[in-house]
């Protein structure tokens, strides 16, 4: 259920399942290869068809293992690339936020509060975290909104949202 909302987690689970399947199948392949080798060694009283079938099974399993291993490697590479992309996007996002804060000439404490506002923390919690009165936080927020020329929380957030969506359209 959680996996549906977090595709990354779902992919990770798929990778684990794939790896487990590879292990099991590879062990089966080794069992058959060992059996074929031992049968060949004993030579005399084996019926040929049985041996041929076993050899084919061993080959098919081995080929399957190699194929699945390649799949797993590609899946791993894709996940690593995606993680890099997300990290880069995060870096871009914080650069963007910094740039806007600079433009609005926020003071260091206003930057801190603005960031908490962006993260969705309410005034009450901000006041507790900073060890100040709620009224102080409210006053600081008002100054931030004034500097950014917005009406409040939602509009402050929408500035960044708009920037991100535009970046996506280009």
């Amino acid at each position: 259920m959680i996996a549906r909302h977090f595709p990354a987690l779902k992919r990770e689970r798929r990778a684990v399942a794939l790896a487990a399947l590879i292990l099991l199948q590879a062990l089966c392949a080794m069992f058959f290869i060992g059996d074929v080798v031992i049968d060949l060694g004993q030579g005399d009283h084996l019926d040929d068809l049985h041996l041929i079938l076993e050899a084919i099974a061993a080959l098919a399993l081995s080929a399957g293992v190699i194929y699945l291993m390649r799949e797993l490697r590609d899946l791993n590479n894709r996940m690593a690339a995606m993680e890099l992309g997300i990290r880069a996007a995060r870096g871009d996002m914080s650069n963007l936020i910094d740039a806007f804060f600079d433009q609005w000439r926020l003071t260091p404490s206003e930057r801190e509060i603005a960031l908490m506002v962006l993260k969705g923390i309410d005034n009450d919690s901000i006041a507790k975290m900073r060890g100040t009165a709620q009224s102080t936080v409210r006053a600081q927020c008002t100054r931030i909104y004034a500097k950014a020329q917005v009406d409040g929380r939602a509009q402050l957030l929408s500035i960044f949202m708009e920037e991100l969506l535009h970046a996506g359209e280009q």
Partner: protein
Amino acid sequence: MPVGDTSECGCPGARTIPVWDPLVRLVHWGLALTILLNAAVLDEESALHEWVGYVALGLVGIRLIWGLFGSRHSRLSAFPPKPVTAMRHLVALSKGDKTVHLSHNPLGALMVYNMWVTVLVLGATGYMMGTMQFFGVDWVEEAHEIAFNWLLVSIVLHIGGVAFDTWRSGVPLVRSMIDGRKRVPQDRPVE
């Protein structure tokens, strides 16, 4: 206050890097389980002991094949066995070097190959003991015994090494072998 991310572990500025793919992790814990079973649980005369031994052999075989073309940090070429580099690493350690290695560190790499070879020797001599040709031959049984004792020594060294490197580098290594991610403190150089 910097805007940058603090990752989910709550340690400020730590970088979380995916390192061990699921196949590496499953082989690692699978091998640990087979060794535990054969060393401490199963009767060594039993057929199950033999089969668990073959599974261990198979796991090492799979890991070696995966090491030829698997994902980046799991490839054998990412941690070649180089005693000279390992010695240099040892000297660097004694001088308080804090470098974090994404794959195995040079000493750890030697331990990995040592374990694999030891398990292969155990498997081979174990198989030989069951064949007509080598049944009851002294040197084969002794080799199996010596390899087993060496494996126990190796396991102690391995666990000690992991504990030491976790303390030295600040990367929780056991956790990285469970969920595959190394959490590297921000100030550590990475190799």
